[in-house]
């Protein structure tokens, strides 16, 4: 046994550090993803994970490997047909992620000025493909609300029967 082995504090220790949610971020370009991850790190209250590829399989694999508790996906309604980044293709990613991590919460960040997409977004939430969405820039207040929701889910999952 190594003398450098890290000793984990017991779960019922009041001094134990709260478990921060792992937040996977997948924006429409690697540059935007890195910026979003940096923004989240400065915001605090979570462990950001940048998912630089927005390929469905890559996102699902990385979320599973890193055990993401929350996934932020950005849409791009002007993306080309060969590489769509619209509501339904983002829901497709959410389905794959949830197949591996049923308790992972998924939120979409959508650009402003597309009222025709609202019906699809509402339906995606109603059918529980995603947990929520925001239109326009993501505010710190909105992100904190999503983090709180995620922490509630994490607590409920961790609670012994």
């Amino acid at each position, binding site marked *: 046994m190594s003398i450098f082995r890290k000793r984990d504090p017991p779960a019922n220790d009041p001094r134990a550090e709260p478990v921060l949610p792992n937040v996977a971020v997948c924006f429409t370009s690697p540059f935007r993803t890195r910026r979003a991850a940096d923004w989240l790190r400065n915001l605090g209250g979570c462990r950001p994970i940048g998912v630089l590829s927005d390929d469905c399989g890559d996102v699902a694999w990385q979320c599973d490997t890193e055990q993401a508790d929350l996934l932020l996906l950005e849409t791009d309604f002007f993306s080309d047909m060969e590489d769509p980044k619209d509501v339904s293709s983002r829901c497709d990613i959410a389905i794959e992620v949830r197949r591996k991590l049923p308790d992972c919460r998924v939120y979409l960040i959508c650009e402003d000025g597309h009222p025709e997409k609202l019906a*699809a977004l509402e339906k995606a939430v109603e*059918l529980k493909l995603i947990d929520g969405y925001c239109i326009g820039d993501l505010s710190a207040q909105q992100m904190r609300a999503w983090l709180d929701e995620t922490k509630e889910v994490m607590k409920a999952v961790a609670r012994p029967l």
Partner: protein
Amino acid sequence: MTDYELQTRKALRRVVLLEYGFGPETMRRRKICPNCGRANNSQETHCADCGVTLPEKTLYDFYRSRHRCCPGCGIAVTNVAQYCPECGKRLPKAVQRGETAV
């Protein structure tokens, strides 16, 4: 196919229909102007472009008058179908429908 796949595939199909402006839910929200052909919101009484009074019927009502539709989910089904392929509801017997001009 697992239950998860079946459930999510159906849900995704509904999202896709709404996103691209198709499906019963989209058509129920639309009224077509008989004068200029503009698609208006179903709550409107007059066309936003030309001001002509809009018909009472939504786009979905016209669609129903031309197709046999499932009473459960509203999608068009074939005349020989006994069960809806979308929601599984047992369908009433098919009746001959007269064509209505939009």
